């Protein structure tokens, strides 16, 4: 047998095995029950319009708020990380390590329950929305800071020097020359960060959401509980994919372009 023939044989064997596994699983499964419990049209219809107008909308709002907060803080942290001032560098490094090392859920708990204990009588403005922006924003800013730092460092040093040579201050050179070019470089990883945040917004339930502040994952779980049927999970999952798949596709496209 030639090399090519051997490889073709092995490949065919793998396909046959995969097909067999699928057939066995599909044969064992109870299809009418699966359809009834996962793809129930009646129950699916009952989820609308709230699953769009409330749940999906809140998922998007939480993601956007957290990302907006995260990017502002992330850029500041990246600049501190690259600063020539020691204490700024150390603070940023510590912050980034800390919040990349903690679960997002724990940080949300701290914001929701720790801050009210630490500052009695004060409230984070915006209610749950403010808490989410702060909690998820703190976490994502740590990731965004590292991404931005890499982006800033990827802008050739000559760009900064040329700006300084023209009389721009350090801050002006960063704002007008370096950061705009760094942003272009990090659009793909930042898009992936939005995908991560979209999924992380499912943790917002730990803050205790209500009927108007609920988001997709919580809404789907409530649907599961009240109908004793998994269809809401399937619909909720598909709505996540409606957001995340185009974003991932976009990120890949942008990566290829640059």
């Amino acid at each position, binding site marked *: 047998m030639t090399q090519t023939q051997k490889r073709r044989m092995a490949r065919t064997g793998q396909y046959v095995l995969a097909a067999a596994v699928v057939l066995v699983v599909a044969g064992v499964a109870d299809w009418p029950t699966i359809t009834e419990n996962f793809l129930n049209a009646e129950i699916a219809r009952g989820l609308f319009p709230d699953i769009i107008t409330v749940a999906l909308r809140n998922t998007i709002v939480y993601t956007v708020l957290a990302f907006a907060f995260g990017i502002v803080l992330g850029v500041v942290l990246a600049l501190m990380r690259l600063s020539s001032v020691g204490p700024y560098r150390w603070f940023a490094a510590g912050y980034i390590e800390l919040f990349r090392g903690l679960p997002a859920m724990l940080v949300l708990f701290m914001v929701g329950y720790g801050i009210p204990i630490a500052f009695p009588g004060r409230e984070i403005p915006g209610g749950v929305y403010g808490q989410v922006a702060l909690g998820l924003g703190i976490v994502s800013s740590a990731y965004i800071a590292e991404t931005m730092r890499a982006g800033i460092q990827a802008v050739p040093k*000559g760009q900064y020097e*040329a700006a300084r*040579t*023209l*009389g*721009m201050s350090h801050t002006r050179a960063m704002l007008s020359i370096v950061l705009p070019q760094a942003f272009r470089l990090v659009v793909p990883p930042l898009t992936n960060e939005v995908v991560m945040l979209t999924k992380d917004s499912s943790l917002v339930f730990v803050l205790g959401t209500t009927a108007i502040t609920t988001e997709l994952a919580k809404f789907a779980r409530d649907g599961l509980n009240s109908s004793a049927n998994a269809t809401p999970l399937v619909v909720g999952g598909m709505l996540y994919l409606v957001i995340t798949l185009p974003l991932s596709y976009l990120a890949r496209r942008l990566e290829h372009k640059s």
Partner: protein
Amino acid sequence: MIRIEGLHKSYGDRPVLKGIDLEVPTGEVACVIGPSGSGKSTLLRCVNLLETPTSGRITINDAEITSPDCDLDAVRRRIGMVFQQFNLFGHLSVLDNCVIAQRRVLGRTRPEAERIARENLARVGLADRATARPAQLSGGQQQRVAIARALSMDPELMLFDEPTSALDPELVGEVLAVMRELAAEGMTMLVVTHEMGFAREVASRVLFMDDGVVVEDGPPAQIFGTPKEARTRTFLQRVLDPIHHPA
């Protein structure tokens, strides 16, 4: 006028400039030549304080820029610098490359800044490329834009660090032509170059640097015709006739 007195620069404990003295009177062109690693770029970068001198004094038109209470940004805005790698701002059009510092640093209005930018682009022969991106231009064109960008700030003097070394041979001429014209208009220029023809014709003074010091300094006819120092002779032989005098 640039006056440099006793300029030293070390990186860590490694001395790179070991006591440079030189003066370029207003309206004159001084060319710095010398082997790689001799400290030519470091000298230029000290003049606009991209590098902080370890010791020594640099005076530009009677203002000592090395004094501790000197405003760095104010100094740099009076000195134009052109780099070997052009360093045009990649995210901006050719016109905006010439406009941005005029607006952000000098506070000029957009119409005024654009008018001045267009004048300078015309001066380097690129009036018709104002809307292009740097990446769409040839190396020679990019370097001419870099010169126009520097000129748009109305500098009192211009520093050039091997402005043609990154160019294909056939593009060198167009950049040198712009520099020659600038010299003829009376710009004070300090030029690091390997273009011996340019140094010979345009420079009022040629300085040969080696190992952190100015070894020899004189009018081009003397440096190229009757160099006094052995090191200068060896360098010139290598540069002018590399086949018979390999390194």
